[in-house]
């Protein structure tokens, strides 16, 4: 047993934290969020320069060869800073799917550019009727000419508005909820027939609903084996889930820190409100919830890419997400409540942490979804 971070992991997390403290304070973030693109290209370039975009990719693909554990500290820092750049969509979802399923040629066409910060990805998976079920894929891919024709609709595709390419799950055989018959296709975001409706999300990131209307791609757009993509999708989504567990710990830490500071400085009835025992216990419970969440984030990260088998991984990731979802809700609600009216305002960071935590609680499956999966595997 050893919970120590390696020196390398520590250094990287520290450099990210330092960069964010200097160039990504809350006021800067407000400007980025309000900009037309909704993210900052210079920040993205800096992420690439610091090696964040290369972190989870194998050395053979030009990456650093890190796993989820190597990314924990970085994700926590990203959580503390409420970073809105599409890091998860590009590296943990889109990038991972290509790294895991792509041919040598496909990887070569995408990953070096991604690692250098020149290319962004998004993973188009969720559909109107799918809720959190990854096997629910109604979007169709049919053989056409020498390649494929794509028809269907995806929704809440995170990072899509700024992505260069989309990894799209589509059905090449079987019925909508079948586990077999799902394939992955790499599609240019600007290909004819790809229609985006872009918007902001609850946590101030950008996403889009996407319509694919007779979109034609070549045979080389197919990633991995035809009809056999579900396992890779589950793996990538579990990986991303493990990462947002660490991110959540960072967001909660930030929410707790500002709440604690508020309890010490806000005075009512002639004393700091932190002297009221009713509030002290609430603050303690938030702290405990965050530590419990941190423990489970460690478990998820340690199993995300090293589990003995898929069930072992799913069970650990679901366990973590259950605890994280509950902690997100608890810490988000209490941090606002303990700030009184100030907690409700757009002006304070704590309300933005609330929004990110509310989103994370549901992202990649809410509490009930993971309770169900965990119970099934236990």
């Amino acid at each position, binding site marked *: 047993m050893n919970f120590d971070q390696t020196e390398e992991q520590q250094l990287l997390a520290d450099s990210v934290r330092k960069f964010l403290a200097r160039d990504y304070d809350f006021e800067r973030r407000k400007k980025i969020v309000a900009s037309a693109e909704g993210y900052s290209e210079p920040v993205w370039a800096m992420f690439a320069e610091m090696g964040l975009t290369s972190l989870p990719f194998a050395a053979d693909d030009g990456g650093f060869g890190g796993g989820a554990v190597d990314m924990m500290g970085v994700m926590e820092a990203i959580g503390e800073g409420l970073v809105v750049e599409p890091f998860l969509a590009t590296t943990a979802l889109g990038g991972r799917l290509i790294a895991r399923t792509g041919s040598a040629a496909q990887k070569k066409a995408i990953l070096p550019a991604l690692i250098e910060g020149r290319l962004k990805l998004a993973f188009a998976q969720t559909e109107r*009727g799918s809720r959190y079920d990854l096997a629910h894929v109604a979007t169709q891919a049919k053989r056409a000419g020498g390649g494929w024709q794509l028809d269907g609709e995806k929704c*809440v595709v995170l990072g899509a508005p700024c992505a260069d390419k989309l990894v799209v799950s589509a059905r090449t055989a079987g019925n909508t909820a079948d586990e077999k018959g799902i394939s992955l296709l790499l599609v240019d975001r600007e290909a004819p027939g790809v229609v985006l409706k872009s918007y*902001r999300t609850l946590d101030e990131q950008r996403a889009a609903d996407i319509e694919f209307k007779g979109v034609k791609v070549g045979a080389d757009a197919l990633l991995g084996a035809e009809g056999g993509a579900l396992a890779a999708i589950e793996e990538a989504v579990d990986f991303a889930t493990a990462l947002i567990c660490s991110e959540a710990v960072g967001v909660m830490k930030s929410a707790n820190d500002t709440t604690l500071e508020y309890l010490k400085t806000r005075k009512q*009835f002639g004393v700091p409100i932190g002297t009221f025992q009713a509030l002290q216990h609430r603050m303690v419970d938030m702290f405990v919830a965050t530590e419990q969440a941190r423990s489970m984030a460690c478990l998820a990260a340690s199993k995300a890419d090293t589990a003995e088998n898929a069930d072992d991984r799913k069970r650990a990731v679901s366990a973590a997400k259950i605890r994280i979802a509950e902690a997100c809700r608890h810490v988000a609600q209490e941090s606002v*409540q303990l700030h009184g*009216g100030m907690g409700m305002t757009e002006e304070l960071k704590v309300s933005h942490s609330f929004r990110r935590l*509310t989103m994370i609680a549901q992202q990649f499956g809410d509490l*009930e979804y993971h309770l169900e999966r965990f119970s099934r595997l236990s």
Partner: protein
Amino acid sequence: MDLNYSTEELAFRDEVRGWLASNLPADLRDKVAEYKELDREDLLRWHKILAKKGWVAPAWPKEFGGTDWNVVQRYIFEEECGFAGTPPLIPFGLAMCGPVLLRFGSDAQKKRFLPRIYNGDDFWCQGYSEPGSGSDLASLKTKAMREGDHYVVNGQKTWTTLGHYGDWIFCLVRTDSGASKRQEGISFLLIDMKTPGITVRPLILMDGGHEVNEVFFDDVKVPVENLVYEENKGWTVAKYLLGHERMNTGRIGGSKRELAKLKEFAGNQVFGGKTLMQDVRFRDKVARVEVELMALEITNLRFLDQMRRTRQPPGADVSMLKIKGTEIQQALTELMMQAVGPLAQPFRPTNGSSDFDDFTAGLAPRYCNFRKTTIYAGSNEIQRNIIAKMTLGL
């Protein structure tokens, strides 16, 4: 013991229900149902419809337009409005300033203000909280200095709900800084918001909406005749108002409507071949809230029964209606958001400026917005303190 309404009470309920069904304008009903922002015109329009019917201020004495309904009828009326989904009646004039004037106002003040409040001629706001004085209201600093026939007011109020619509604001101000007890130097003033020296600035909440404001007072001249009750006795007025307010916080009709809506909505969400209401984990969550709401409704009726029998205002333990009522409202907004799963992630801020207009995209902002209910009107922590101290003697 009989938990059912009497035949007369049922007849009364049907009358109210029938009238609301044919008099609530469809566009207002839809706006409420779709959780759209209601503007000043919307709010006053509904106010005026009720005023014309004679139902806008049931609790007021008959001579000022009251209905002579007993407490149970008043409750039934409110719950039916909530259940029908009417726009809210903004409480600041009708349920706050009005009752204060009725109890403490001079004849001249009653004559001048009450008919206008009744008819919705003026939009009223509540100027209590200040940046440094929220839960600890008695620490308020906004000053009013007497100079001849007027006061000069300087200071700042904050969290002023709908202050940007306001014509008038009732304020607690400090008229004696030297009083031995903080509560003794406070007065209750009515201030015309068009008076020079008043600046209203928006505060944007986390749902993107503009509903509260900061109000700044810079040498604002307020005629002495706008003082309610005696100088330095404003705390007595404020306390009277608090007692008046609390009975009104359960919002049971509104929650019943939201519950029904949630069930219908979740019943139409089909995933994996079954509806969300057939999903045991989700259904149990809904059932728990429903049972909480049933308990609250009966608790509320018990308070009403007691008031009817004793003809006394309720005791401090009605704070539990605020605690439970707001927790239920919050739980319902949360379940509604969860019911749509990932489709709650697109964000439609409540100020209407959005690139996304799906109903589902308004559910998360609504969940965010409802966090306010456990903070305002005496936070739920303060309500617990009240019960601890006044009811339990701790």
